[in-house]
Structures are given as structure tokens and as C-alpha cells.
């Protein structure tokens, strides 16, 4: 049985700050994963990624990250993405400081 296609978000690091950003439905950038647009259609995700990757004055290193859609909103499926959306575990720096 093949696995149902997983939703993805477009993510990158901001050019100036270097922190983690996600693409929104309005094709802006957000620092909050829950505000990101989740693509369930693979072609749409790839197309959005291609457009985002051209915005090199804003971001660096765009890629698609797999997510889950839950009652609480978008959640990462991999622990690396969980750390990226939160910040390091030894200090409340990065996104945790802003929260």
C-alpha cells in the first residue's frame, strides 16, 4: 500500500537574519510554521518552491519540508524541522526568545 502524499511547506533561511522562514499563502514569508501554507498537491508545492527559490534577495536555501496537518495546525514530521521551528534546546534563543 502506497503512503498517502504528505503535505509540505516551503522553508528557507532569511538572507539578513539567517533565521528560519516559511512561505505563506500570500507568498510572503513568516517565522511561524503555523502561518505557513501547506501544499498537499506535489506539483503545486514544486511550483511554489521554484518561485520562492528565485527570491534570492530575501532568502537562502529554499526546500520543501514535510509536515502534518493536525487539530492544532501545521506540525513538523521530522525532529530536524521541529528544532528549526523552535530554536536550540540549550538556551531560549532564536524563535523561543521572540515567543
Amino acid at each position, binding site marked *: 500500500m502506497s503512503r498517502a502524499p504528505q503535505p509540505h511547506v516551503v522553508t528557507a533561511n532569511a538572507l*539578513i537574519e*539567517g*533565521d528560519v522562514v516559511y512561505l505563506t499563502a500570500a507568498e510572503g514569508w513568516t517565522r511561524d510554521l503555523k502561518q505557513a501554507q501547506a501544499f498537499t498537491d506535489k506539483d503545486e508545492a514544486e511550483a511554489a518552491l521554484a518561485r520562492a527559490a528565485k527570491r534570492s*534577495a530575501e532568502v537562502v536555501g529554499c526546500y520543501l519540508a514535510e509536515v502534518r496537518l493536525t487539530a492544532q495546525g501545521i506540525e513538523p514530521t521530522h525532529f530536524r524541522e521541529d528544532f528549526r521551528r523552535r530554536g536550540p*534546546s*540549550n538556551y531560549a534563543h532564536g524563535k523561543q526568545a521572540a515567543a
Partner: protein
Amino acid sequence: MYVYDDFDTAFLTERNRQFREQVARRIDGSLTEEEFRPLRLMNGLYLQLHAYMLRVAVPYGTLNPNQLRKLAEIADRWDEGYGHVTTRQNVQFNWPKLTDVPDMLDALAEVGLHAIQTSGNTIRNVTSDHFAAAAADEIADPRPYAELIRQWSTDHPEFQFLPRKFKVAVTGSEIDRAVTKAHDIGLRMVRKDGAEGFEVIVGGGLGRTPMIGKVLRDFLPVADLLPYLEAVVGTYNLLGRRDNKYKARIKITVHENGIETVRDLVEARFAEIAPQFDTAATLATLARIQGMFRAPEFRQVSDLAYQAAHGADPVFRAWADTNLHAHKVEGHAIVTISLKAHGATPGDMTSDQMRLIADLAERYGYGEIRLSHEQNVILPHVALADLPAVHKALKGRGLATANVGLVSDIIACPGMDYCALATARSIPIAQEIATHFDALKLEHDIGPLKIKISGCINACGHHHVGHIGILGLDRAGVENYQITLGGDGSEDAALGERTGPGFAYDQIVPAIERILRAYLDLRTSREETFLQAYRRLGLGPFKEALYGAERHAA
């Protein structure tokens, strides 16, 4: 220590001016990220998981108080108020903004520091023995040679695009505190017929394919140092593989071609280029550098205050017994300041701590500070009489942990809390091991032990040469930690042996405890260290302690 001349200062000013313009061109869109990336890496600027990271070169781990104060100022002004000491004696800032980096580099240049060649496929910061010029077991201070190599390798036009990065370590002692056998080139000072020279070790390295270095030349006269190094790196530059990044380090070149072939090629190249070197000029430069590394005028003072504190204060005594090493001059000691308070991040130093250490170095330590690859800070020359005052001041800033060389003095790479390459976290594992054994009050009973943790196979945490090595991996989307035992980074260098299947994040601390309880049961006496017991017993009993319970339950 080395003092910049006009040439050095002008070089750095020009280089920083260039990078400032490169950053501006990246931001205004004239440079793409692909064009900019190699330029920023040449200047030590990485883009990591949550932010940029600036890696500052600390040549052979030596700093003066003003340099450390400048690092504190940079940490406060442009970062999060701390710096991280790396396993190659450098300092990393984890939170700079791209637009601030040119100003940070200018600030570093004010005190003769920079971030050049702390990344990229170049000759990296030359590392050395953190006890250099202080240890009683030393032939000579290795740092003037390290400085000579630094000058030769900085911006060397032939070696800016090597097949892969290239790391050199130099030690002046038989006791290897610089892990020379796990470097691309390790230089160990030796004496032959009264003359000083080097044993040249090549092709060591950890990472994906760990190798212990092999002797390329058993005695290299000092006068031949630069042409010989140029011959080695030049040979590697041509022979090293560029088709596969994982086979591009010189250890693979040596492994695939054989040490004899590499030796023949190096000797041939050496014969060819040596006449082009002006040996007299090099030796004059070396003599000038050595003049800058002259030992201080050591004060002769009574050690009665030290004896009194050692007798009366158990906290001071515990610290003195673990964190001091014998100094070559009577009445002095080498102080290791632990950056491993139980539960703290290994190698992190706040700006307040930096300023205190700078003040102590100035007041009591002849102005000398070292960073160790074991992620601690060293005051290499302190009079015994001053130790109670030094200890008291350190205690006030959380820097007096008496654990050097013990279970909680852990090397840990930044791991997935910071590093974009990591496959698992390292820091919290180190924090939990330290607090766990502190709570059990077993640390001093266990005795000398080196635990080293890497968060991926690149092995920045030197796990292969840890007495206990821990390697964090991503196994099907879950953090998993493999254990190796019996590694050794000293002059008796050895690679650790893998115990078997790895452990989940919440199982790794109990697994380490099982190993260490087995050691306590199996050792012949308190004098037999973990490593000695492992060498006597082999992997068997430790494997049984690790996995036996699971097997019996199954």
C-alpha cells in the same frame, strides 16, 4: 605572543574592506548566493540551522586579555552575550546578522583577530598544545612554528582550492595534547643529535573514515619545515581526489596510494622546490617570532598561601587536585578553567566570564590565555601563591567546577541545536550525562575519563578518540546514539570500537551508566583507569553490561 606588523594589519584591513563590499553586493543583488557562498566561507561565515555562525580563528588557541575582552564586546554587541569554544581551539558566535558581520570583522581586526580560512578547502587554523611553553614535559614551545605555518598558509595562492579542508597540529611535547595523529598533518617536535626537528605524521583524521596518521618523515630539520610542508600539501593538491567529497581528504590519498608512494612523491617535490626557499630568511623570521614568544620573568614567591588553602579548604583542594597541572617552573601551576559546569553547554563562555578570565590573566597569569580543543580555557602560568585568589574569583562566575579530565568534562560538537550538517543533538546529551553523574556523586570515584560526543559522522566532537565515544545519528526519523569504547587521542592514539546497536535519546544516559558501573565492578583498583581496564578486558564485559539485560529479557 605574536604581534601584528604593518603588513599584517594592512592585509587584514584590505581583506575586511573587500568582504564588506561583497556583503553589500550580495544584499543589493549583484552577487547570487552561489557566488557569495564561497566568499563568505573564506571569511568564516556559515549559514547554520537557525542563524549565521561566525567562526573566529584563534591561532594555536592563544589569546591575550584584550583579545578576549574584544570577543566579549562582540558577543554583547552583535550576538547573544556568549561565545563557543570549538574542538579546534576557535571561537564561534552563533547568532550574527549578515549585515553586522563586516563590523564584527573590523572589531576583531582591532585586536589582530580574523576569521580567514576557518572554513573552505584551505589550510585551516593551526592548532597546538594548550599547555605550550608551560608544560614540564616539553622540548620547546611549538607556537613559534605554528605561527610560521600560519603566516605561510594564510592566503597561500596554491592552496586556496585544495581537494578538501586541511588541518595541521603541532606539539612540542612527547605527551600529545594536540591530537596530532588525527590531523591531516601532525608535527611532533623531536630531538636528534642535539638538533630540534619534527616527526611528520600524515593522513590522520576522524569523520566518516577515521584513520590514525602515519609517519611520513621521522626527522625533519627545522630549516626544512616550510618547503617540506609545501611539498606535502602540493602533492596532495595534485594527487587528492576531487571526484568524491567523501574520499577527498589526504587520509584517503595516503590510504589509496600507500604511504611509500606518497613519501616518494613528497620527497621528489621537496627536492624540486626546496632550493627556491630562502632558508636564511625563514630562519630569521622564525627567530623574530620566537622573540615574541619569550617566556615571562616568572616571579619567585612563597607558596605558603597555597599550602594553607589546600589544607583548610576542601572545595579549593578538590579544584586544585583536578584542574591544575605541573608547570615547568617551580612555584607555578597550569590552571584549566572548566567550561563544563554540570548542566552547562560544553565550551560556552558568557561575556562576563570572558572579561573575568581576561582580568585574571592580566593580574595573575602574565597576560596569557589559551583555549583547548577540549573546550576549556587555560591560564598557563599562575604562581601557586595566587591560586586561592584565582579560585575565589572563578567561583564567583561559575567557573570553578572541579571536573577537568573527569566524566563531565565532555567534548561535544554543537550538534543539531545549531549545526546544519548534524543528524542528532549533542549538547543535551552532554548536559544530561554531566548532571546525572554529579547527582550520583560518582564522578571522582570513576576518575580519569574522556567522553566525546559528535552529532554526525563528520566527528567534530572527536568521538572516535573518546574513551567513550557517542555518535548521534538519524535512524528512520528518530535520534539514535552509537557508542564506541577504547578510543584515545593521545600519543597512544587509537580508534574506539563500536559496541553494537545504538540507543534512543532517552536511553543513552542509562547506557553510559551501565558501562561505568561495569568498570567500577571490574577494575583491579582505583588506580586502574577506565581506559586501562578496557585495554585489559576488551569489549566483551562492557558489551554484556550494555546489552546483556536486554538479551536475557528477550
